[in-house]
């Protein structure tokens, strides 16, 4: 496990060069380049922008599928995610979520859909994945976005760099391998309480818990 996290850290550096050629426009404020591309897809079905997104996010999503035990469906997942991105792009609103967050939630939902299909017995599924797991921005009741929300990814990327490896390991297992806290504890051979306290420390630094205490 430690090895795979090291591998993750090693690739992070390489990835940083991979930004689209278009320089972010100052007038676009906090809009990052990927969100600009996604907006072009939504507004004018721009296939070049779509391809740039595919080249950046496609390989990430394929890894995500493989880490999740969907190796034999990894390319299927990438396809489904991109078809879904095309169809939904008209609903994308950069003020509600950065492109990468929006795409992550689509990948998560499509993964859940594929797992449901694989698990399905004769019983009919009565509830839609999207009734349970929401894609940001697709709900009228959502409050207008705060700057805080737009900055979230930048802040998280920054905070994550300073987290101890043992904390990153635990969170990465929850997100990338879809392991419950209990499974992570079993795998790392540590008590459930230790997993929870590592998560709590990490979320505290990522300001998720801090907001907990304000209410």
């Amino acid at each position, binding site marked *: 496990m430690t090895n795979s996290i090291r*591998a*993750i850290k090693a690739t992070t550096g390489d*990835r940083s060069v991979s930004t689209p050629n278009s320089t972010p426009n100052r007038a676009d404020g906090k809009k990052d380049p990927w969100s600009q591309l996604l907006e072009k897809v939504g507004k004018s*079905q721009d296939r070049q922008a779509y*391809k740039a997104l595919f080249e950046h996010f*496609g*390989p*990430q*999503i*394929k*890894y*995500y599928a493989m880490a999740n035990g969907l190796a034999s469906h990894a*390319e299927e997942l*990438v*396809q489904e995610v991109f*078809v879904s991105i*095309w*169809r*939904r792009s*008209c609903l994308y609103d950069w003020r509600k979520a950065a492109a*990468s*967050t929006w795409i*992550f*939630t689509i990948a*998560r939902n499509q*993964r*859940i859909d594929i797992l449901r299909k694989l698990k399905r*017995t004769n*019983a*009919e*599924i*009565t*509830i839609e994945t999207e*009734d*349970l*797991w*929401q894609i*940001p921005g697709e*709900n009228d009741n959502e*409050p207008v976005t705060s700057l805080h929300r737009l900055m*979230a990814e930048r802040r*998280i990327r920054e905070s*994550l760099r300073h987290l101890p490896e043992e904390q990153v390991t635990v*969170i990465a297992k929850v*997100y*990338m391998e*879809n*392991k*419950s*806290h209990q499974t992570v504890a079993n795998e790392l051979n540590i008590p459930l309480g230790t997993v*929870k306290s590592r*998560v*709590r420390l990490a*979320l505290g630094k*990522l300001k*998720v818990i801090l*907001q*907990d205490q*304000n*209410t």
Partner: protein
Amino acid sequence: MTQHHPDSHSLMEYSAGNLSDPHALCIRLHLDQCDHCQSRVDTLDSLGAVLMEQQASVSVSADMFDHILARLNDEPEIPPMAVNKAGNALERLVQSDINDLPWKRQLADVSVLDISHLFPDQPEKVVLQKLAAGGKAPAHTHRGQETTIVLQGAFSDHKGVFNQWDFVVLDQEDTHKPIALEGPDCITLSVLSAPLKLTGTFTRLLNPFIS
């Protein structure tokens, strides 16, 4: 606004897509009504995105993009996405106002409706419970974990008052004796990871809770 929120661990498991359907439903119903938790989930979704970005990547087959374009060409019209559906996820699931469901009365004040069959392939027991306004439920403890969200009305127990959209998790340490407040009947949705057992004399009456 709601006072009792899901903990950060549950929200993280939700954001990661690791929860079972019934547990995800409880969280979703809460998020629909709680901006505070919704904003925590937004942050967690961004955490997921950043983690995905920091993983190794695996190249996709050379012709995949063309396959995708071919699929899109087959349906040149982008079907409009249905965004605003009527009611919340639970109402769509049971296709009814929750007050008009075929409730099964078990005690003067207590009615239940088991909706586990709406979640095929899920091990949990999923139950709607209705406690008549001002009514008392028998004391009971929990053998496993019970996640509850208040859908209507309010109840109180030794831990405090739980209003509409409040989120409660109980486990074996908790013996509680809920009392519904005056007002509309108190209706809750509970997901039981293991059957609960009664401490009082109502064991036989509340049989559906014990499988």
